[in-house]
């Protein structure tokens, strides 16, 4: 029983977040509608506590602590992702403050859901057992289903929520069935046990094959990888913008974290096979994501396809890790994925923050055409959007370039130069749809018949979010080394 207390200490950040979420839900009915922002500050406080706790361990980054008989583990890998998730969640909450006010959606439970989703993500990145990873995924998804539909006055939001729910539940059914089969093959649900049982025997067992495919599909859904991506554009478009940002960044990062851990720590013995599998998925994702993004007219939908394409770029790193010759090659592949998602977080959050507060009358300006002439009216806002778009397109010296650079380098090191070249070509194509936003902002006058001209509504919280995002994009573009070395240090050991 003595170790029980120690176990609780290991998951202290999770406990804080869940505790804060419960507290929020209790306090929610007690706070008057005009004071709901207090709840946001409360959740930010909880996050600050967690950042202190996890950040304080940065000096012992790679110390591996496990708890509850190896159900959860806190290692460098988990700490890296947790820090990223805290940051993203904090910025999302800040972004939500003005957004919810503008949408008249001041619901206290919103922040509770964000924290619950965050706790699910934290369990995902720390999970060392298929059970905990599944539980974390479900906790995250259930919160997100609700958040997507929070704008109850909007049929689109409800539709997004319902679609997300049906397909999400469906995909989690696939994931669970895969887990159950894997359990049957491996005789245990701990990743270590799975790895030991599989060894390096390959797909000799059809059950193992089906299980792997089902796992890939289940995670592929959360990552928005083609062909499991169909929900993404609809849900991203319909959900409230702050929720979309949260989904596009945090949920994708956490899913990637769990996905990498399962396939590297658990199914590492099959890496020769799954790397081919993901190579295929990655190619399809790059092609479809980038090409379909070109024809979009709604900016949230365009960013949804862009987020699909970015999942494709990140997958290159995993493929490289699977192919990686020797220890170092694999490590740089995994590190490149971690780096990619961390950098992707800044630019995507920034872009969504601009979109969320870009208002036409009381409504969101969601069409790309709404941005016409923004450079003239609000040059600073247009410039920020320009930076985010340039970064998403991967043009140096922004963070987006650094992310792509490391991913492509990992591919080249793993002997996949042709894949890097293909991805490069699609990166060049992607510039077309990102720069279209820039072109509209800088080179087109708003249609005079369209009525009210959309404006970016500034507020202190939004300023903080945008400043953080643009600083991240530019500083990590110019000085990527701290982040790169952090990612390289905290990478999973690849057996």
């Amino acid at each position: 029983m003595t170790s029980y207390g120690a176990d609780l200490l290991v998951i202290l950040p999770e406990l804080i977040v869940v505790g804060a979420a419960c507290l929020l839900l209790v306090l929610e009915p007690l706070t008057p509608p005009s004071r709901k922002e207090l709840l946001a500050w409360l959740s930010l406080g909880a996050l600050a506590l967690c950042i202190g706790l996890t950040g304080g361990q940065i000096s012992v980054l790679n110390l591996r602590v496990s708890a509850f008989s190896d159900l959860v583990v806190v290692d460098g890998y988990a700490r890296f992702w947790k820090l990223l998730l805290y940051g993203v969640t904090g910025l999302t909450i800040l972004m939500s403050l003005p957004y919810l006010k503008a949408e008249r959606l001041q619901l206290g439970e919103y922040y509770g859901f964000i924290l619950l989703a965050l706790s699910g993500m934290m369990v995902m990145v720390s999970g060392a057992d298929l059970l905990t990873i599944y539980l974390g995924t479900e906790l995250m998804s259930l919160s997100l289903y609700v958040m997507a539909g929070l704008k109850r006055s909007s049929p689109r939001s409800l539709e997004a929520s319902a679609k997300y729910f049906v397909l999400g539940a469906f995909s989690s059914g696939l994931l669970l069935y895969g887990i159950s089969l894997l359990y049957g093959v491996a005789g245990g649900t701990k990743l270590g046990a799975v790895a030991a049982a599989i060894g390096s025997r390959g797909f000799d067992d059809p059950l193992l094959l089906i299980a792997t495919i089902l796992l890939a599909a289940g995670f592929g859904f959360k990552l928005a990888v083609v062909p499991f991506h169909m929900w993404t554009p609809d849900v991203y478009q319909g959900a409230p913008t702050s929720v979309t940002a949260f989904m596009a960044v945090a949920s994708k990062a956490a899913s990637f974290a769990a996905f990498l851990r399962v396939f590297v720590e658990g199914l590492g013995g099959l890496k020769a096979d799954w790397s081919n599998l993901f190579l295929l998925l990655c190619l399809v994702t790059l092609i479809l994501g980038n090409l379909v993004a070109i024809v979009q007219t709604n900016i949230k939908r365009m960013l949804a396809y862009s987020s699909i394409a970015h999942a494709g770029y990140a997958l290159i790193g995993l493929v490289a890790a699977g192919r990686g010759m020797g220890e170092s090659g694999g490590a740089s592949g995994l590190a490149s994925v971690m780096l990619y998602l961390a950098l992707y977080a800044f630019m995507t959050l920034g872009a969504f923050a601009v979109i969320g507060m870009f208002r036409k009358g009381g409504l969101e300006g969601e069409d790309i055409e709404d941005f016409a002439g923004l450079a003239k009216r609000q040059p600073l806002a247009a410039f920020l959007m320009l930076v985010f778009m340039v970064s998403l397109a991967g043009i140096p010296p922004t963070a987006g370039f650094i992310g792509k650079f490391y991913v492509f380098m990992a591919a080249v090191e793993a002997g996949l130069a042709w894949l890097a070249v293909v991805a490069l070509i699609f990166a060049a194509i992607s510039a077309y749809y990102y720069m279209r936003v820039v072109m509209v902002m800088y080179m087109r006058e708003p249609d005079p018949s369209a009525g009210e001209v959309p404006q970016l509504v500034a507020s202190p919280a939004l300023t903080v979010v945008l400043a953080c995002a643009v600083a991240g994009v530019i500083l990590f573009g110019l000085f990527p080394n701290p982040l790169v070395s952090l990612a390289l240090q905290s990478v999973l050991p690849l057996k």
Partner: protein
Amino acid sequence: MVPLSAYVAVSAVLFITGLLGVLIRRNFIIVLMAVEIMLNAANINLVAFSHYLESMAGQLVALFVIAIAAGEAAVGLAIIIVVFRGKISTNVDEMNVLKW
């Protein structure tokens, strides 16, 4: 003694039934039920494997899955109610404002 393959076969049939239910049925509530069937197919697997492997982990997972299924049903029904208020319909096909 019922062989393990029998359990796996039943579970597979249930799983495919659930899969087809999601594919074919148009009623939101029935789709939700189909998803529950999929989860329960996994549960049968877990418990059967647990018995034959003589490991408790599977049964534990199954217990958790039952809890999650309940949570999922609750959230799902809540979403259905809100959607139903707006549309007076629970037909999944009618949710197609967002497309392309």
